[in-house]
């Protein structure tokens, strides 16, 4: 079975914030290592800039957003770009589920941060599998 549309992953673009780094590390793990054939990374900054390719990607495919803080920029921008958010993750909520993985560091995550990013990547992968196996985008505010 083929899936012509990839699941778009849009992480937080917060630079200088640990939770933003966790979100991006998790996104890289899913899109580059775990499910490269089924997923596509879209940079939030490109959506903010109104990049046509980025807007087209989120408009055509279900998106998983990863927000680093309560401003939820990734989720808001996907919606504003005409996309459908199949699942939104907040790093803070993920950390509450994995308290043993305390994230620290920015340019380079601590071991706990890397473990948290990996745990988040596993959760995202599960959602990707659900989406691709169902063949639809799902919907989650």
């Amino acid at each position, binding site marked *: 079975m083929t899936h012509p549309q990839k699941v778009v992953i849009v992480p937080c673009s917060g630079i200088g914030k640990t*939770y933003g780094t966790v979100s991006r590390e998790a996104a890289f793990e899913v899109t580059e290592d775990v499910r490269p054939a089924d997923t596509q990374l879209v940079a939030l900054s490109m959506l903010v800039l109104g990049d046509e390719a980025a807007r087209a990607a989120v408009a055509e495919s279900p998106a998983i957003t990863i927000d680093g803080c*309560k401003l939820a920029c990734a989720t808001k921008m996907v919606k504003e770009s005409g996309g459908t958010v199949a699942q939104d993750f907040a790093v*803070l909520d993920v950390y*509450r589920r994995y*308290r043993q993985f305390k994230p620290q560091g920015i340019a380079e995550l601590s071991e706990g941060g890397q473990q948290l990013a990996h745990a988040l990547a596993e959760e995202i992968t599960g959602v990707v599998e659900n989406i691709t196996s169902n063949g639809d985008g799902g919907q989650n505010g």
Partner: protein
Amino acid sequence: MTEFLETTVDKFIFKVATDRSYSSEGLWAQADGNRIRIGLSDFLQQRSGDVAFADVKPVGTVLAVGDEVATIETIKVNISLTSPVNGKIVEINPAMQDAPEAINQDPYGEGWLAIIEAADWEADKAALLDPQAYFKLMRGQAEEEAKKL
């Protein structure tokens, strides 16, 4: 209805509820008889960041002013919070277990930490700051913080 003193520093707005007393650390204390509800000021919660976990000492814990009453872990820091009153913890906000973000969302309301049965509230209150005094202190602290941005 609670009224607030309010100030804007840089892009941030900070409120101080006028119906309670404050420690210089930024904890508020509001009396209902000798039951004293405590929590974080708006400035303290904003400066600390989004709360991931809040661990309040258990019910029955006897505290002196300055004893640790709770710790909070935020996206920025781990903070030890000290009691503004002498007494015994008689109730803990259940939201601290399941939804500690209430501290950020409603610091003077749903985000309260605990209720302490005061040993001598009048004596404790005399050592705390009234809202105007805390507002002045807080504004100075906020302006200092803003210089670091």
